[in-house]
């Protein structure tokens, strides 16, 4: 591919003369106004080179070289034939104006890269994605906070912090004072509150670690927010701009959070030395557990993103089916990966296919007991409400009922969400209605698949429900 041709081409849909009305397809297509053409996708796990563009709504899009060439030469002025000439010169294959029209109509317009920038464009429908997101800190605030923290990613400082972290944690676990910390937390409500506050603070520090790591590499971190992940609340930082970084930069952003957990533990330790409070030692020990949990790669936490970036595969779950197709990882998607990436995706897939179902079964088995406990709790709170009139007692009971309803509702929602995703996965797999065959038989087949999934979910719940004792 001739870079010079690419470089000389306008890369923004806004490059057209504002005085020239945008022409209609097929002669003069233009990219959506705010599409940013980033360049080569560095560290991709694919054998063929791919390119990145970002839509005005922040959605990142990966493109094949031909689509990239077509998009980068569209400016709303050149005709399809002129664009085709430039693409032909760049890629060395004859491309006709009609080919460009076809790519625009069937690839670039549906992806939201060409056409109305204000239109509602498709977003990826991801498995196990964060939902109901709310921004807590806008991107500019996250940037302002993370910018001065970049120095913590300087090599010697990383080594120093890591060594100190290991020392501090060894001290915490060897001190024999962790249980005293638990007792203090339990026996004094104020201590529990303090510990909760310190843990929440560590989450903020963790997210700033992601943002700072991302910024250290040269990308701009997005907003920090909170959302619902399956059934539990979760904080997040939008590091989508990290796609523009090379592999090492992306991995730094992924691991920046757990690195800042280490920074946090090291920073809390002097306060422990001053106060001697075992509660602080408990917080320091909790950082190790947080790091371990964050590095689990089975859901979209830090470990998942680190493996995803090491493999150069942005959505590992989209390869899930390919991993097991024909038992050899030889699905069409897998054949496009480099051997190293393929191995990483295979290993991840094999572990995930074991761990996630086990976790799901445990959750399903626990559900009836949790629901019954919640109902008992609500009943007790109602009893308190009807027999005691103190303002504080009533407030505590109302809060208890509200919390119980929210938490139980979240658990039930999580199971329903997972069931619906699995049903969709089961009924959508395959290639749609058969060309030769009855559509009715195909519908029955899908219904059977859905029933099987629902049955597989319902059986452990039903069995567990029979074991629950109601008082």
């Amino acid at each position, binding site marked *: 591919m001739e870079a010079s041709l690419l470089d000389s081409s306008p890369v923004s849909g806004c490059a057209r003369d504002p005085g020239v009305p945008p022409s209609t397809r097929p002669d003069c297509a233009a990219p959506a106004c705010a599409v940013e053409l980033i360049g080569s996708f560095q560290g991709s796990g694919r054998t063929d080179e791919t390119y990145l563009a970002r839509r005005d709504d922040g959605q990142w899009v990966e493109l094949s070289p031909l689509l990239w060439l077509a998009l980068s030469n569209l400016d709303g002025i050149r005709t399809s034939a002129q664009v085709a000439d430039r693409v032909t010169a760049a890629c060395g294959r004859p491309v006709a104006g009609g080919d460009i029209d076809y790519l625009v109509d069937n690839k670039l317009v549906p992806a939201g890269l060409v056409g109305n920038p204000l239109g509602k464009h498709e977003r*990826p429908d991801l498995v196990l*994605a964060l939902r109901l997101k709310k921004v807590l800190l806008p991107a500019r605030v996250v940037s302002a906070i993370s910018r001065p923290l970049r120095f913590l990613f300087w090599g010697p400082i990383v080594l120093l912090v890591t060594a100190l972290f290991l020392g501090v944690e060894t001290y915490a676990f060897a001190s024999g004072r962790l249980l005293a910390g638990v007792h203090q937390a*339990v026996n004094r409500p104020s201590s529990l509150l303090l510990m909760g506050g310190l843990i929440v603070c560590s989450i903020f520090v963790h997210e700033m670690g992601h943002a700072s790591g991302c910024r250290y590499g040269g990308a701009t971190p997005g907003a920090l927010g909170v959302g619902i992940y399956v059934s539990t609340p979760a904080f997040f930082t939008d590091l989508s701009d990290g796609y523009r970084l090379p592999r090492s930069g992306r991995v730094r952003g992924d691991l920046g959070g757990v690195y800042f957990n280490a920074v946090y533990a090291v920073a809390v330790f002097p306060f422990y030395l001053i106060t001697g409070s075992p509660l602080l030692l408990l917080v320091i020990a909790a950082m190790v557990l947080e790091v371990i949990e964050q590095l689990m790669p089975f859901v979209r936490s830090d470990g998942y993103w680190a493996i995803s970036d090491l493999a150069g595969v942005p959505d590992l779950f989209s390869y899930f089916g390919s991993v097991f197709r024909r038992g050899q990882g030889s699905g069409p998607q897998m054949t496009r990966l480099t051997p190293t990436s393929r191995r990483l995706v295979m290993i991840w897939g094999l572990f995930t296919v074991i761990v996630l179902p086990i976790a799901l079964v445990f959750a399903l088995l626990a559900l009836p007991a949790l629901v019954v406990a919640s109902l008992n709790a609500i009943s007790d709170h109602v009893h308190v409400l009807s027999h005691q009139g103190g303002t504080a007692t009533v407030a505590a009971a109302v809060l208890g009922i509200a919390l119980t309803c929210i938490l139980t509702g979240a658990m039930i929602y999580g199971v329903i969400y997972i069931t619906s995703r699995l049903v969709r996965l089961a009924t959508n797999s395959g290639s749609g209605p058969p060309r030769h065959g009855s559509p009715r038989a195909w519908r029955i087949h899908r219904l059977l698949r859905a029933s099987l999934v629902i049955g597989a979910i319902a059986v452990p719940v039903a069995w567990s429900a029979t074991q629950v004792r109601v008082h």
Partner: protein
Amino acid sequence: MPMSLTELDAQDVTLLPERATLHRGGLTIVHQTAIAAVFDFSSGSSDTNVAVAAIVNL
């Protein structure tokens, strides 16, 4: 050789997932401790249960 329709159809355009780095750890602790506290408050059980819940949650 001109592009065939199959080649044109094979051109990939993939919407990449948002890189939202999740952190459930701390919130899970707070969230589950809240559950433990709610259940413990309602059942009037001893501190031991809360301690066990806290350790498990951690």
